[in-house]
């Protein structure tokens, strides 16, 4: 009897594992199918940002940073900020928008919810596939941030940080996407971008290092609730020699945000699919 039960448990683990992989496969298949939409959607905003701030401005003598040296420093710190914002934006967009639609109008998530696996894992799978798409977006955007600026970009790679922080940032952003995707409905989703994503981006230490906000102390403390601050600062620590917030702050805070978003997101998902 026990042997039978153990065999059944093993069977169900195999079933759950293969269902999880198949769901991931479905998302990547859809991504490949829509690559012609994914690429322009991913690169346009960072391309314009980098192009205007680090190519057009220096060329027309309206450089950010004051001097030629200042301009180069700005291009360098913008690389990290742009990558950070792309990861966050991608996570929210890739996970939240389809979910809002699937919960709101079409209920087409149903078939995946009925796949032989726990509902929590269906939600977590969304985060994993979102994170993979964030990673892809970061890879596509990196050469733009590196090679478009008219002034030299001084990169100083910290590989261990790069290889641990990028995956963490991708998972955190997708988990945030899950929170938003289960919270907003088709009617309220425009608010997501207007009221949440835009402030997150502008106050996410993309254009300036967090240390420099010391001049505006209340803002420096205020932005600490913005998860993008830690991604941007982390990227800066991984890619440049610009002084950043300490890594012993960045890692635990990002991990805590990730755990919080995963918990809220999975709970929200369960609430939406189970009556």
């Amino acid at each position: 009897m026990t042997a039978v039960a153990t065999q059944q448990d093993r069977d169900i683990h195999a079933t759950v594992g293969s269902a999880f992989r198949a769901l991931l496969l479905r998302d990547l298949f859809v991504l490949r199918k829509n690559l012609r939409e994914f690429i322009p959607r991913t690169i346009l905003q960072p391309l314009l940002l980098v192009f205007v701030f680090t190519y057009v401005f220096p060329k027309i003598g309206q450089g950010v940073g004051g001097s030629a040296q200042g301009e180069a420093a700005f291009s360098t710190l913008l690389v990290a900020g742009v990558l950070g914002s792309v990861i966050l934006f991608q996570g929210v967009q890739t996970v939240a928008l389809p979910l809002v639609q699937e919960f709101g109008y079409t209920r087409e998530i149903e078939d995946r919810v009925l796949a032989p696996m726990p509902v929590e894992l269906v939600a977590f799978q969304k985060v994993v596939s979102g994170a993979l798409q964030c990673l892809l977006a970061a890879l596509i955007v990196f050469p733009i941030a590196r090679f478009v600026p008219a002034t030299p970009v001084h990169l100083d790679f910290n590989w261990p940080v790069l290889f641990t922080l990028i995956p963490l940032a991708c998972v955190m952003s997708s988990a945030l996407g899950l929170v938003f995707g289960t919270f907003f409905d088709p009617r309220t989703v425009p608010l997501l971008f207007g009221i949440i994503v835009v402030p997150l981006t502008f106050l996410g230490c993309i254009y300036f290092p967090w240390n420099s906000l010391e001049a505006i102390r209340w803002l420096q403390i205020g932005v600490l609730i913005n998860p993008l601050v830690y991604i941007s600062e982390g990227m800066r620590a991984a890619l440049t020699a610009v002084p950043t917030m300490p890594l012993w702050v960045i890692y635990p805070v990002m991990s805590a945000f990730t755990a919080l978003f995963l918990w809220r997101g999975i709970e929200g998902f369960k609430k939406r699919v189970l009556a």
Partner: protein
Amino acid sequence: MTGKDIMTQIDDTATNASDTSGPQEVIRTEQLTKIYPGGVKAVDALDLSVRQGEIFGLLGPNGAGKTTTAGMLTTRVVPTSGRAFVGGIEVWQHPSKAKRLIGVVPQTNTLDRALSVWENLYFHGRFFGMSAKQARSESDFLLERFRLAERADAPVAALSGGMAQRLMVARAVMHRPSVLFLDEPTAGLDPQSRIALWEILDELHTDGQTILLTTHYMEEADQLCDRLAIIDHGRLLALGTPAQLKASTGMDTVVTVIADGELTSLASLLGREVEGATGARVHDGTIRLGVKGARGVLPQVVQVAERAGHRVTDLSISEPTLETVFIALTGKDLRE
């Protein structure tokens, strides 16, 4: 005959039919109850048993608790109390195991819009552990069988309602579930698509597929189902084959009478004076008189009515239907 009498009579039949030598039980619910937040009792202590290979119908008006019951059996609605078993597995203790045993066709079109017709089947097969090769050949086979092969590469948004429904049935049976659940499968379909779907369900039934469907169309229940549970307000009112249910009303003929004047007194008069009358009630401006084993009923009805000063304007006879059963049980018809 009252609703309670009918219940008792059908219970006897059901007990006789459920001896141990019969086919295996695939669905069982024990005191299954769902109370939604706000206190609405959608399903109230429901005990059901569905046997292998049968088409079992949950018949009742909108809001009777049919969809909630199906939802609790398919891991989508969390029961407030009671237990639900599919294939011997307690659904809420082992939802992942239970999901392997069920195929679900929900009320709305839930096909994956990001995928084509063929891809919808292919990925469904993969979700249930099929290899790429197996999923490919099974998708081809099912599209042929469900007459969708020509639309294999079409986006699902381009399918008509009937085609989308067929594809959802194909998807639901692809992983060979022990039970196929269909929630109001023909609601919103045109008559032709409805008949096409009935044919498909009939074929699946012939192949031995156990099917549980919810419906508020009595014709559908009558035509398709081996056995039916009539439910209202979340409670089981009657259980049996369509023939048993109809026989349980105790009548073999229903006389529908439209007359002028006060109908309630006429109804009780007809119930008393017409030979073989089993009961009469007024519903929707018409009198429905149940009769058993009597001949020449219509002239009698006219005579009794005219003697009491009523002018009969319309008169018809029919056999009892499931609607008759439902009215006998609840005093209202299914469309209410």
